[in-house]
């Protein structure tokens, strides 16, 4: 990544809600440990079940993230605002992706690998701590979602039974 690239990314990101909270130096350090990634239209960023080891920050373009849920099918999220982060929890631990993500149009991203994040974090860098603050918000959402799904399936046996019978009939 050239100095010109870093400056351009900084210009874009400092206008976004989350990264506007970063000091200029912090943002520069964060961008400095990222890799540039450009996807062609319809090119996958990751596939369902593939190992995830990075978070991505959208610079330009648009992504589609498809989540598969039982029993209600799929949910597709559109990621199109510069500064949006996808896959943040993968900087904490390597998990397999439970969604698929691909570019809708030509898309430019910054890739933050787990080991790069870990180095910043272990060095007590505010650039990493601010990402952890963001992660804390996601953690609460994740847990609520997990509790809701548990309740839907196991706390409502009549509805689950109807769904299961329908599946058996359709099989």
């Amino acid at each position, binding site marked *: 990544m050239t100095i010109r690239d870093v400056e351009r990314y900084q210009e874009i990101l400092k206008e976004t809600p989350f990264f506007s909270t970063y000091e200029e130096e912090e943002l520069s350090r964060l961008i400095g440990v990222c890799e540039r990634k450009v996807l062609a239209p319809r090119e996958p960023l990751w596939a369902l079940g593939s190992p995830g080891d990075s978070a991505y920050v959208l610079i330009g373009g648009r992504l589609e993230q498809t989540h598969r*849920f*039982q*029993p209600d099918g799929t949910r597709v999220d559109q990621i199109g605002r510069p500064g949006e982060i996808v896959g943040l*929890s993968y900087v*904490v*631990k390597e*998990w397999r992706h*439970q969604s698929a993500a691909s570019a809708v149009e030509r898309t430019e991203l910054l890739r933050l690998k787990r080991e790069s994040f870990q180095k910043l*974090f272990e060095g*007590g860098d*505010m650039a*990493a*701590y601010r990402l*952890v*603050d963001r*992660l*804390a*918000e*996601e*953690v*609460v959402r*994740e*847990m609520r*979602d*997990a*509790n809701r*799904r*548990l309740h839907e*399936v196991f706390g409502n*046996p*009549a509805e*689950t*039974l109807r*769904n*299961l*019978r329908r*599946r*058996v009939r359709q*099989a």
Partner: protein
Amino acid sequence: MSQEGEDPVVEISLGGTPAGAETVFASTLLFGSLTGEEVREVVRACEQEHFEPGECLFRQGEEADSLFIVVQGELEVVGHSPTGEKVVLAVLGPGTVVGELSLIEGGPRSATVAAVSQCQLFRLRRGKFDAMREARRPAAYKIIVGLASTVCERRRQTDARVEEVFQDPAKHIDAFESQLHEMLGRLRKA
């Protein structure tokens, strides 16, 4: 339910620095990545509490504002069935952390937690934890990373459990039918 005598002996000095508490903290997944000094910092931010058998730490629906770390004794997590019956969801022993998410956000407690035997606990209030975050203490940030790891893992287990039910519906129909009949039976009795 009490397993008194089987619990590890943990010395607690109510007046000074709790000796042995660091071992309990270091044994938990949530605090496992903290250095000795960071654990001592968290211990200093905690309050020590004692609960008698039957005493509640908190009740379902109450506002969550603290995390608890079990040092000694046993707790039970209690929920209620749709017919109002008490259901023991889990029994927790030393080294267990209760109410992790309340460090980040409030909201109502999802279950009641009560002491089964005499219990010694550490309580970390969200206010104290927020102060650590505001001071950008590495210990606070390591705890959040540990929390993220735990929660994402739980989320994955939930998804796997739900996926398993719908992947092989015929295999699970009987279990859900029995659960439904039991519930209806209890409702009729009530």
